[in-house]
């Protein structure tokens, strides 16, 4: 359909996609294109249709109107929101990774190493902690070298440090493997670091663009409030490693990069480290 799509590295394209559930529109006239080596994050409040959008991209939901184009032969790696394996099914981590794609033991080990879960290969998946499961699911989606990773709320049930590490990994996959990434998130802060493009969704696409631009967009502000915007700005600074002298970026400073010097700030200014909500912190 789109001419020269392959040349431009286009992986998936939605044109005017509309999905209705029982007459109520869940998605209206959505346009979205996903490219290789690009991380697109879809944010929006609960019920905004984020997961439905992911399902359309994955081919799990057929749109009522509009068109979905996928590059022929597109390999998708999908990390669902939750994966609960019945205890009746004995399933070690290594076997979970080869459920949908064949892979040698060496490839399985190397993918697990890549997400820092190499030691888990023989563990039963039912015994994993939330953070371990998240890494293992990410590794599973990577097996076989997908062209497009679709991650639905990948940082659920993971603590802040774990979240930052997870987003760092995603950024690295994009860089090193050149795969496209579609991420669904309601996490407005940490996720921005790893994102090239943000799509703000509320049944329709409210706005989209670079994280900084979306953070200033009136529709975004209307949806999430100015507090979210200011924390986004803080985060953008933090990621640029332009820390304020008084070290008050701390509550957002969990992106997993080399920020060890912040902790020294913490010792110098212990009074700054009240457990304030991110939205209340001023840059």
């Amino acid at each position, binding site marked *: 359909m789109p001419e020269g799509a392959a040349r431009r590295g286009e992986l998936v394209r939605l044109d005017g996609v509309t999905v209705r559930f029982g007459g109520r529109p869940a998605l209206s006239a959505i346009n979205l294109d996903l490219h290789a080596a690009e991380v697109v994050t879809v944010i929006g409040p609960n019920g905004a249709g984020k997961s439905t959008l992911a*399902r359309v991209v*994955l*081919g*799990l939901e057929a749109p009522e109107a509009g068109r979905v184009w996928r590059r022929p032969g597109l*390999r*998708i*790696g*999908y990390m*669902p929101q939750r*994966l609960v*394996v*019945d205890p*009746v*099914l*004995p*399933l*070690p981590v290594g*076997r*979970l990774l080869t*459920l*949908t*794609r*064949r892979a040698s033991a060496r490839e399985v080990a190397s993918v697990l190493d890549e997400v820092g879960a190499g030691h888990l290969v023989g563990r*039963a998946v039912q015994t994993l902690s939330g953070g371990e499961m998240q890494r293992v699911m990410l590794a599973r989606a990577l097996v076989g070298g997908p062209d497009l990773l*679709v991650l639905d709320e990948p940082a659920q049930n993971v603590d802040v440090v774990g979240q930052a590490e997870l987003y760092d990994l995603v950024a690295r996959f994009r860089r090193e493997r050149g795969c496209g990434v579609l991420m669904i998130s309601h996490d407005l802060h940490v996720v921005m670091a790893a994102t090239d493009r943000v799509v703000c969704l509320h049944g329709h696409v409210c706005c989209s663009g670079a994280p900084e631009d979306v953070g200033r967009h009136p529709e975004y502000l209307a949806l999430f409030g100015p507090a979210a915007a200011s924390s986004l700005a803080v985060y953008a600074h933090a990621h640029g490693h332009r820390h304020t002298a008084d070290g008050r970026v701390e509550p957002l400073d969990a992106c997993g990069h080399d920020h060890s010097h912040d902790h020294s700030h913490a010792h110098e200014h212990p009074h700054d480290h009240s457990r304030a909500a991110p939205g209340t912190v001023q840059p």
Partner: protein
Amino acid sequence: MIPPLDDFLVRALLGGLGIALVAGPLGCFVAWRRMAYFGDTLAHASLLGVALGFLLSVDPLVGILGTCAVVAVSVVLLQEQRRVATDTLLGLMSHSALALGLVVLGLLPGVRVDLSGLLFGDILSVSPSDLAWIWGGGAAVLAGLAWLWRPLLALTVHEEMARAEGIPTLRVRLVFTLLLAGVVAIAMKVVGILLITAMLILPAAAARPFSTTPERMALLAALAGAAAVGLGLWGSLALDTPAGPSVVVSALVLFLAGQAASLAGGRRGT
């Protein structure tokens, strides 16, 4: 060496083993996918199959196979519609098929059916042609399962994940239910309508504590089923008890022994 097929006990053993080797691995999926009630539904439908076999004067096995296949496909396709809850749907199919089967049998003039044989099986009357059905059909079902193994396991773990990554989930589920229908059809002669689900579920459950991978569980379930057949036939001879139920009781004993052993092992481990 050619086994003495004229010996009814040898035929019973061979028939039982043939069923056990197929029912074990397939039963693992029944357990993993929580489809025990589905197995029951197919078993009940097979009575209607017998009746239809008489009505159309075809081999009862053909009647069973056909009816089970129709019921299996209908259930999967009706599930897709999501208009009726699955267990409601299965209950409806299961008991309607059973009742319909009994009504059709009653309507047939001059046909006297050994209902007890249908309900509980008659493993001691397994004929050489039954054996051919069991081993031929069993081999076909096992080959089908081996072919289906990877995609079926993937969609058992997470159906949407499997579908998103390119597995044709509806087709895989349809083929699996047809394999299940095949097993029910060939197992009915041996253990009967009421006990088929037990041969699917019990060996799998017995194998679970000793399994670390799905493949190992399938293998152990086949072996547990085979052991139950041997033990049951021996017990039936020694104690003069009905053979089919004795096999199922043996499987239950194996399951309980396995649970006890794994509990004891777990306690020793801590």
